[in-house]
């Protein structure tokens, strides 16, 4: 739902809304080890929550070592929670680490 009150569904519309929806691991809302589309998907759904709003430091475009990313994510780091192999498996975490290591700084060249 868009946050604009005016464009939001009214109660009447809702009553006429969709019938029961049944899904088994729907791709776009699949967000667990083995289901991520690519490293950017992981970044968008997990890391960016904290790292793009100033809770954690910027982690793009800093030429950090891929292994450092890997270690911080698995072990956590002080205020940062650890993420488990069921959140992101080793293979995807390596890809994420490589991607972030080579990334441009936010707002910088794409």
């Amino acid at each position: 739902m868009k946050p604009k009150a005016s464009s939001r569904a009214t109660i009447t519309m809702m009553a006429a809304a969709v019938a029961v929806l049944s899904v088994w691991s729907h791709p776009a809302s699949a967000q667990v080890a083995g289901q991520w589309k690519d490293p950017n998907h992981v970044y968008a759904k997990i890391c960016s929550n904290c790292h793009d709003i100033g809770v954690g430091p910027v982690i793009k475009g800093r030429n950090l070592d891929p292994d450092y990313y890997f270690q911080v994510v698995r072990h956590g780091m002080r205020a940062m929670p650890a993420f488990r192999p069921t959140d992101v498996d080793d293979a995807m975490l390596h890809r994420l680490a490589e991607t972030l290591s080579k990334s441009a700084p936010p707002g910088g060249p794409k």
Partner: protein
Amino acid sequence: MSSKYIALPKGVSEKSFDAAIKEYRAVLGEANVFTDSEHLASYSKIMIPDITENHTPSAAICPASVEEVQACVAICNKYKVPVWPISTGRNLGYGSAAPCSRGQVVMDLRRMNKIIEVDAELGTALVEPGVTFQQLYDYLQEHKIPLWLSCPAPSAIAGPLGNAVDRGVGYTPYGEHFMFSCGMEVVMPTGEVLKTGMGSLPNSNTAQVFKWGYGPYLDGIFTQSNYGIVTKMGFWLMPAPPAFKPYVIRYPEETDIVDIVETLRPLRMAMIIPNAVVIVHALWELGSFLKRSEHYPGTGTIPDSVVKDLVKKHKVGMWNVYCGLYGSPEQNEVNWNIIQNVVKASGKGELLTAEQVGDDPVFKYRADLMQGKMNTAEFGLYNWRGGGGSAWFAPVSQARGSETLKQMDMAKRILGKYGFDYVSEFIVGWRDMHHIVDLLYDRTDPAQLEAARACFDELLTEFSKAGYGTYRVNTAFMDKVADTYGPVKREINRKIKRALDPNGIIAPGKSGIWN
């Protein structure tokens, strides 16, 4: 004694554990059983004031289906191996994903992440333990289903099932999450699968719409407990209101807490304020975006005078009350007028809307949480002191001004003795409040860790002496809190445990319940 394991379950020999691990691997596959320190690190990191070694797991097992959970439970019974179930495992500040005692095997249910059903007409959802709020949120968006979630502040990275079975809270009108759950599926310690409420009736289609079923209502005994492993849970979701209007009321003095509660309680009880409102102390408000060391060089409790200056400088209240209006624009207009008049008549408090507040990240995160949107800005609190130490102290209070003042004074006095800050909020229920204090400390400093442990212990002792119980506690203090509720309750919990789980394999020690 060297072992190939980083820890062993209590009373289980290495040889026996080898056999159990081999059987878990046969059921789950090599890739879903972890015993190495590298992978187990992610199950061991804690923020609570206790040493990590007391909570080191021996292994993590990660089933992907109810059948796999059952098979694992059978192996646990065979070898008397204790398992600590987690869902999304983000119980940060309450014990994270780590077990309450050393050597328990973590059963990580994160891979079970099916959204089994969302009924857009009835506003219900049935989900597995590994579903995150983000996943469910994206699902609703994608299918344009006009239903809202209610989530705790870690939103995106936590999950509805794990949060509700620990009786967590959110900030919408559905903020008391267990109250808005409806129907569970539970793998019992014997391996049987129990569906609670209407769900146990074959072919029933009312499991997610009627909570009580027939006979004793059982769902409650599977919350904050170790009587079973919850593998599915139903929830009621709130119809998206046609209009939502968040607002904040700021108060200048700490003692204003009395008037705040007395002014708001009638509005809350009459549901003119329908949501789980928060009354946020200045240090929580400021702590979510400031670093303490940049504003106060000392190591002890930040003085009231410094807090006052910061309040002025950053134009926040000493208390900040976040509420929302949910309804049609006309309904909201009527209620807005009532609220304006009540606040005006009380002679205190500055009432501000989103437009008046402008671009304020704290207001934005509160507004997001009040409409069940993903926003993890509250983790900013961990930068206030830094060092990753956090323990939620969570006594329950009556929604009565004199009581909240008394609790505030007690908490401040005890925190002050140990050099910690009163970083707090009150989450308002219908007649109660969850008084939430984040005991923030630097976990990298052993002296602070020890001080935090002692401080938390004294908070529990003093509050329970005064008749105040806590609604939930971290894994280092579960026995202590169980004692505060008295011997009869504790013994009955144990009798139920023995009857349902004779081998004591599920989460021994959870909420102070042992066999």
